[in-house]
């Protein structure tokens, strides 16, 4: 174990995997000498050479397609999108090709690729560089979707994503890159589809993803002072989703708050809330479910507006207070 950043944890998972497996290689814009948009791949060119760390032209559609084609023929590409917003240019290859090839071909072929993408707001990058679009890909059968919230999870989940024989979208959050955590030095795998209770509690379940896990934990610490006992559940992967863990937690606490940064309208929080509203946990709910998500606006530049556009610690605290103030009445 050592203390390293989220960014370093990702680099470690890649590096160890590339040492182990010749088929794994990197492809993307400015991932070589520049070290990637956020410095994650720094040093990997020196370690593995230009054949396995492939700087590409600015051609998201072709590099996504090249990843698909190489994966289909025996390689295991890891593609970096500097900003997850650029997935808009790669959507055909990702959604119509990578996600569907195996099914359309009746089970022939597999597409083991990882698409790493930096997502989220908070850096003043504005509307075209700050989106959280994980709901799009989570909607597409054939894709898997990962959103690590800690350095430890990032390393273990990335290992699992690389090992997976399917296209996996691995969302990294810009604000998490520099956060530190205890991480084993050796390679390890965290299975996709297993939620993690980041904090146990009895009064309310907060299902939070990515950077919102950290905010929920801070909120939980504050709420503890008011003797409110919050459980923070991090699904870690949206597809596959650990529905059982979510339902069990809500059955225990009787309250559900879902928090994500993505725009609330049409966000994946709707899926999580609905799964609970459809489940046996429905009868355990002691108040309406609540979702906190991004406002229905593009991410603005001004730091004040940018903050106001997505949930902050204070929003979580207030939502919990409100929810627990409301008592369920039987009709």
């Amino acid at each position, binding site marked *: 174990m050592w203390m390293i950043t989220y960014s370093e944890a990702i680099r470690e998972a890649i590096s160890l995997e590339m040492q182990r497996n010749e088929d794994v*290689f990197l492809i993307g814009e400015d991932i070589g000498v520049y070290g990637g948009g956020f410095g994650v791949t720094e040093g990997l060119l020196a370690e593995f050479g230009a*054949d*396995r760390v*492939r700087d*590409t*032209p600015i*051609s*998201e*559609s*072709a*590099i*996504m*397609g*090249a*990843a*698909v*084609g*190489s*994966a*289909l*023929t*025996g*390689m295991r*590409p890891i593609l970096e999108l500097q900003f997850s917003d650029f997935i808009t240019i790669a959507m*055909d*290859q990702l959604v*119509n*090709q990578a996600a569907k*090839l*195996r*099914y*359309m*071909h*009746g*089970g*022939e*072929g*597999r*597409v*083991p690729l990882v698409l790493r993408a930096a997502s989220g707001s908070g850096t003043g990058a504005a509307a075209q560089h700050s989106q959280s679009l994980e709901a799009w890909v989570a909607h597409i*059968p*054939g894709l*898997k979707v990962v959103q690590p919230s800690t350095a430890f999870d990032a390393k273990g989940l990335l290992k699992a994503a690389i090992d997976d*024989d*399917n296209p996996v979208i691995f969302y990294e959050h810009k604000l998490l890159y520099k956060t530190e955590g205890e991480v084993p030095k050796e390679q390890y795998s965290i299975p996709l589809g297993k939620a993690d209770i980041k904090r146990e509690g009895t009064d309310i379940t907060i299902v939070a993803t990515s950077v919102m896990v950290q905010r929920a934990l801070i909120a939980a610490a504050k709420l503890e002072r008011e003797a409110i006992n919050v459980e923070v559940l991090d699904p870690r992967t949206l597809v596959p989703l650990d529905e059982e863990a979510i339902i069990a937690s809500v059955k225990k606490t009787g309250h559900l708050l879902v928090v994500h940064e993505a725009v609330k309208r049409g966000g994946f929080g709707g899926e999580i809330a609905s799964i609970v509203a459809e489940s046996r946990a429905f009868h355990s709910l002691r108040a309406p479910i609540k979702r906190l998500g991004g406002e229905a606006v593009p991410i603005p530049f001004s730091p004040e507006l940018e903050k106001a556009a997505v949930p902050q610690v204070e929003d979580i605290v207030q939502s919990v207070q409100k929810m627990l103030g409301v008592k369920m009445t039987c009709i």
Partner: protein
Amino acid sequence: MEILPNLTNPELLHLYKKMWLIRHFDEKIDEFFRKGIMHGTTHLSIGQEATAVGACAVLTDEDKITSTHRGHGHAIAKGARVDKMMAEMFGKSTGYSKGKGGSMHFSDLEKGNLGSNGIVGGGIPIAVGAALTAKMKKQKDVTISFFGDGATNEGSFHEAVNLASIWKLPVIFFCENNQYGMSSPIDEMINIEHIAERAASYGIPGVIVDGNNLVEVMNATYEAAEHVRMGKGPILIEAKTYRWRGHSKSDKRKYRSREEERFWQTRDPIKQYEGYLINKGILTRETAKKIKLEVRQIMEAAVEFAKRSPKPSIEELYTDVYA
């Protein structure tokens, strides 16, 4: 014209047979759609047999292709079994995709067919990826990416050819210029005379061939394959051809004249190759007849196989989503 690849006479006859297999396969499909007994839609490559067969003639099973919505011909040319194809067209569990893919979606990895594609231009970057594998794994295989004239106006074409060019990947970009997209005449959709001219944007050779002349197609592809295998980077081949039928099952062909269609039918690629073989003394009228008969029998058997095959069970809905 001399044939460049070192093919035996039986091999040359086999190409002739493949052309007929394609023609008859698509004629059968046409018939079934007309009769209303086939689901979905389809795109026939009748009249374009020389491009698929000629190009694939120089490939081995290790070499790869990516195909298009108009992909039956490519599949047959690359060695697919017509019974499994026919079964797929009928949505049967014995089909290439167990009935899940239909006309536009099947692959045959054993034979190097990475799959047809319903997205115009969608296969081009995938072919580049396959060629990247060959380069990284130091394999000798080449990949041919087939696509239409219309596809060359997609961004994916541009990005993919450029990428292959700078990385000198072993891929042949094979444009079947059949003069039209769905209804759009290519000469109104580009402002240059030949699609092959676009090679200039990527610093690669651009070659124009008569797409209805199998030998010409084969020779050009042979030379291209030599070139790309030597690590000299990709090549763009433009084969001028014509689809005899409508774009898909429900096309009234208002965008072109019957005269134009008749003109192209006088340039039948199968007849031309037949004439060539006969001239060279490789084929007799007799053998030609026999081959055609054989093809008809194969097709009847394929239809029988397809019709008798079971439908996929409903559980199949959920399989193959993830590996």
